[in-house]
């Protein structure tokens, strides 16, 4: 294997070390699913505890009434809706990474798209909790579904909340199916290498996958088709989530740039989450070969670009309100910047727009610890952004009687914190039951990297290091 000399190794140029043995890929990933180490159990217990806190808070709120959340006549929504938007935002990066980059043949996504796709599904499942727990009468949440009730009563299809229900159910179904279909070949591999209950599970789940060319051909088309369906779906889901606010007449909410602003915010917070999970999985499962630095580089650059798009749309909204004549909206904007919530507003601006510039420096992108904390703070910035959309508008509004400042109580914080526990629980279970790196995709990536012959690999090497690298064999025989 190429030792670590000062100029770039193959891996830096070709994103992955092209002569990893395919059997090693299988074994690494299969091992990641077996023998959970102590760290895993600690994480599992922590997540379960956190989720327990959420359960306690929900039971407490269910029995004592919604007032325990300190919501009031002006602030009918607060952290529940903003964390609902936050979790929906987190889910869009999975789609971005797996569907969009698949269409543009950005192969570097292959090792990391599986856990990104899993993150989509689980953050959707987490997001799905909030529209239910924020209801006053939780036990009637199913009235939102369009079923043929014998009293001839339908939900109100004009309401953005119904659009939410439609959008999230179709998004959840399609992203679960996308994750599952993408995993069928891997499940076949698992079926072949496991015993006991896992074998029966994977045999059933892999739907009799045998690697025939017919199956692969249909798989490629299906994956492409569903990817094509998922991309507009992801954009439309978060546009619809933004329409919860854009369709209202409240100052600071009925802003026409909300749909793209929310979609950009969603992709942004999703990429930040991908970086976080990238660093965690790389650390816990020792996936250094698969989750290589160039891939992290590319994800960080992608995050930076989307951060700038988001910042641009943010500034568009501020300037549109500032130069517009709508006095109440202007008051809300000024109150955001100078009023009681100003510390969170400026927090959002710093974490959301200033912090991403740190991603430009190569040294930062190389350092795993820094990257972990940066990605956490980026997401903190995005959570603040959702909160700063919901609460300041409700604390101002049109009628002076509605002016008041509300701070969330312990019930809301418990629910929001607990939702991370629920997400962690789902993710930890997933990692142990299903392969979190797509084996066949990594093989494809290695296979293609071996095929690609950079005519100018040598100049690339010199360019990077200034010292003529060893003559890279351009052609190598098939996997040993």
């Amino acid at each position: 294997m190429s030792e670590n000399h000062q100029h770039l190794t193959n891996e830096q140029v070709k994103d992955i070390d092209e002569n990893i043995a395919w059997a090693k890929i299988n074994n690494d990933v299969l091992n990641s699913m077996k023998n959970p180490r102590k760290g895993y159990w600690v994480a599992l217990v922590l997540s379960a505890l956190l989720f327990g806190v959420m359960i306690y808070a929900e039971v407490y709120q269910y029995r004592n009434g919604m007032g325990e959340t300190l919501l009031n006549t002006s602030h009918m929504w607060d952290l529940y809706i903003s964390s609902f938007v936050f979790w929906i935002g987190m889910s869009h990066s999975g789609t971005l990474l797996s569907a969009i980059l698949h269409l543009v043949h950005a192969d570097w996504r292959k090792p990391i798209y599986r856990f990104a796709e899993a993150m989509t599904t689980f953050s959707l499942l987490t997001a799905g909790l909030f529209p239910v727990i924020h209801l006053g009468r939780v036990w009637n949440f199913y009235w939102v579904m369009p079923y043929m009730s014998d009293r001839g009563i339908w939900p109100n299809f004009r309401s953005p909340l119904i659009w939410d229900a439609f959008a999230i159910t179709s998004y959840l179904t399609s992203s679960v199916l996308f994750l599952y279909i993408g995993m069928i070949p891997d499940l076949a591999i698992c079926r072949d290498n496991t015993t006991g209950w896992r074998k029966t599970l994977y045999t059933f789940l892999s739907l009799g996958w045998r690697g025939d060319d017919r199956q692969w051909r249909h798989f490629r088309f299906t994956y492409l088709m569903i990817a094509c369906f998922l991309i507009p779906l992801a954009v439309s889901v978060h546009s619809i989530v933004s329409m919860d606010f854009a369709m209202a007449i409240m100052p600071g909410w009925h802003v026409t740039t909300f749909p793209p602003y929310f979609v950009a915010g969603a992709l942004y917070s999703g990429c930040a989450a991908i970086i976080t999970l990238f660093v965690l999985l790389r650390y816990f499962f020792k996936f250094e070969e698969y989750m290589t630095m160039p891939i992290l580089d590319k994800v960080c650059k992608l995050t930076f670009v989307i951060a700038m798009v988001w910042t641009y749309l943010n500034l568009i909204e501020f300037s549109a309100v500032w130069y517009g004549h709508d006095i109440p909206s202007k008051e809300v904007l000024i109150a955001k910047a100078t009023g009681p919530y100003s510390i969170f507003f400026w927090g959002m601006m710093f974490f959301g727009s200033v912090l991403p510039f740190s991603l430009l420096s190569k040294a930062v992108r190389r350092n795993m610890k820094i990257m972990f904390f940066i990605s956490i703070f980026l997401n903190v910035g995005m959570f603040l952004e959702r909160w700063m959309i919901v609460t300041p508008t409700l604390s101002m509004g049109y009628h002076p009687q509605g002016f008041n400042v509300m701070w969330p109580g312990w019930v809301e914080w418990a629910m929001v914190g607990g939702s991370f526990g629920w997400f962690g629980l789902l993710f930890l279970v997933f990692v142990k039951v299903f392969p979190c790196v797509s084996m066949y995709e990594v093989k494809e990536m290695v296979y293609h990297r071996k095929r690609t012959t950079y005519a100018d690999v040598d100049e690339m090497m010199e360019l990077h290091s200034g010292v003529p690298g060893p003559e890279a064999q351009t052609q190598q025989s098939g996997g040993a």
Partner: protein
Amino acid sequence: MSKTKIDRRNFLKVLGLGSAGAALAGCDMPSYVTSDEGKENIYSYLAPEEYVIPGIGVWYASTCQQCPASCGVHGRVREGRVLKLEGNPDASVNKGKICQMGQAAIQGHFHPERIENPLINGQKATWDEALALVAKKSGGAAWLTGAMSGHQRVLIDAHRTAGGNARHYAVEVVNARPWEDASLATLGDANPNLHIDKARAVLAVGADFLGTWGNPVKSMRDYGNFRSAPRGVLMSIEPAMSMTGANSDIWVTARPGSEAAVLMGVGHILTTKHGVSVADMPSAALAFADMTPTKVLGLSDVKEEQLAKIADTLMANSPSLILANANHDTAKVAQVLNMMLGNVGQTLTPSAAITAEALLPVTGSSKDLVEFAMDAKAGKISSVFISGTNPVFLAPSKLDMAGALAKVGFKVAIADFHDETTTACDVVLPASSALEAWGTHVPVDGSDAGEVYIQQPLMENVHANTRGLGDILLAVAKGAGVDGLAEFEDYYGYLRTAVSALIGSDLEGDWNSILQKGKAVTAVNHSNFNAGGDVALGFSEPAAKAGTLTLITSARQGLFDGRHANLPWLQEAPDQISKAVWDSWAEIHPKTAAKIGAKDGDYITITSANGSITTRVFIYKGIHQDAISVPMGRGHTNYGLYAKNGVNPLSLLDASSGDRQTTELLNSGVSVTVKPTGDNRHLVRLMDVDSQHGRKLAATITADQFDRNQGGA
């Protein structure tokens, strides 16, 4: 059915096959309300009482006893329970309207903390034991009640004459005594008939006729016409903004206690600038002459152009009406101005009391409260009946009412609720609420309608073992050996004969029409003013010098004088001016707040010579800079679960000083010192904002715009 498409609304009709539509408001039945001829015989679970048809509300007439004004009400009764009170259109006092205290009477009626059984020294007893004890020990007892009228007063007087003519103390801290005494002195008629709706301008000096003065609902009804086109001008002079002040076109704030001087200043301008003659009252003319505007400015901080503006408005809009209740001197000046401006006879007409003097109302005052405490301490009172008032709460701490009561040998309380006074009494007789007892009341409104309002029970007793005030008085009077009552075994019988005697016919039909109308109309004897004598006008130098704070105890139409502090609806009804709920507050001017270093929501300790209270600050510009106003009504120590919070400003007042002629507590401005305590908690208010933030919410147009389009209605 031939109709192709049955929509939802007719579907129910078709289902019902006829007139039995399942309407929300109750089942269908013939228009007139008698069960025997109805097309549909719908029987309730038991043999129904008369007129009790499930689902159909029946209205009975009665009289509201939430304040001394005695408005006529209709009570809506469904399935034997009174649900809502509304004004009685036939009652000439309020003509179908009532205030928020009237609306909240339902809560007092169904209150969980009602006294249910007679108590002797706190122990449960039966009625016979209690009445026997009372008969034995209450010989020659005095009576301490609120404003009392009608046949209840007759029984009290009968009991007093039988027992050696002890005194009847009538205690109403919120009263119109200065206005009544001044009217008696100047016009010879204590309750002249006021016609606010005919006036083109009204000047109210400390007489909050839209809030708690006189007959608020009657005044508000007249104010409604007063404001219709051609629109009258309302002016008021007061240290702190009251309900009348809040609705004034011209609101002038004067230093507390200087109202008389300001009114004389107005008189001065009327006589000098407008040449209004005061020929027949030389001493008044003299007083007006030397009350120059600069002198007024020194006494009350009211500038000359404000006085001129008031005087010009009075001249430009006649007939006008000047009402004053700040203190005795002011009220006299007001009556003199009324005579000068020719209002007497136009907006002030002679009152016509009913011929049956015995039923006339005894209007209460705080003078009786002070004198009761003095007499009790002097040992002149051996035993006392207390009903409809809470002297221990109302009396200033200096008066030590609890100590005075301790000196009285035998004390009997007739009350609905436990309060500070019933705990000090030996025997407590549980009275039924006003909505479940009989009674008659004569309103204090000076009109010539000659009406005696009937208070009839709107439902059975909520608590079986309580008795109406009338029944208790009847039993006590019998116990004291009053003759001529033996034949009546309950107050209803007594009333039946008394009212029949009043209207001169005891036909069943007349009695039923009286009950339906809620009033009996009797003869009145018309009188007219014997004005004309000279009137000596004086004013007292305000005790507090400029810069020192004077405490004002303001009364608001809600908790009134504290009697409604245990009604949650009124505790939660935001105060009309400060919009605060469930707690007391002290109103001060922003400059005063800056001076004492207090900001919104700070707690301050207000100390006078007689005690101190600590409450939160409410800062606004509707008050004089040397005044601090704390509303009355809260600060109970023992009045149930809902009346726990707030402070009682009455405790700080000085019982001795008061007004020169009378000792009206509310007018005795006591000077206080104020110091912030340092802690701060947001004052719970309906509105945290006082401004409309540029939105067009409560817009205003000028009066001449209004007149230009004939008021635009």
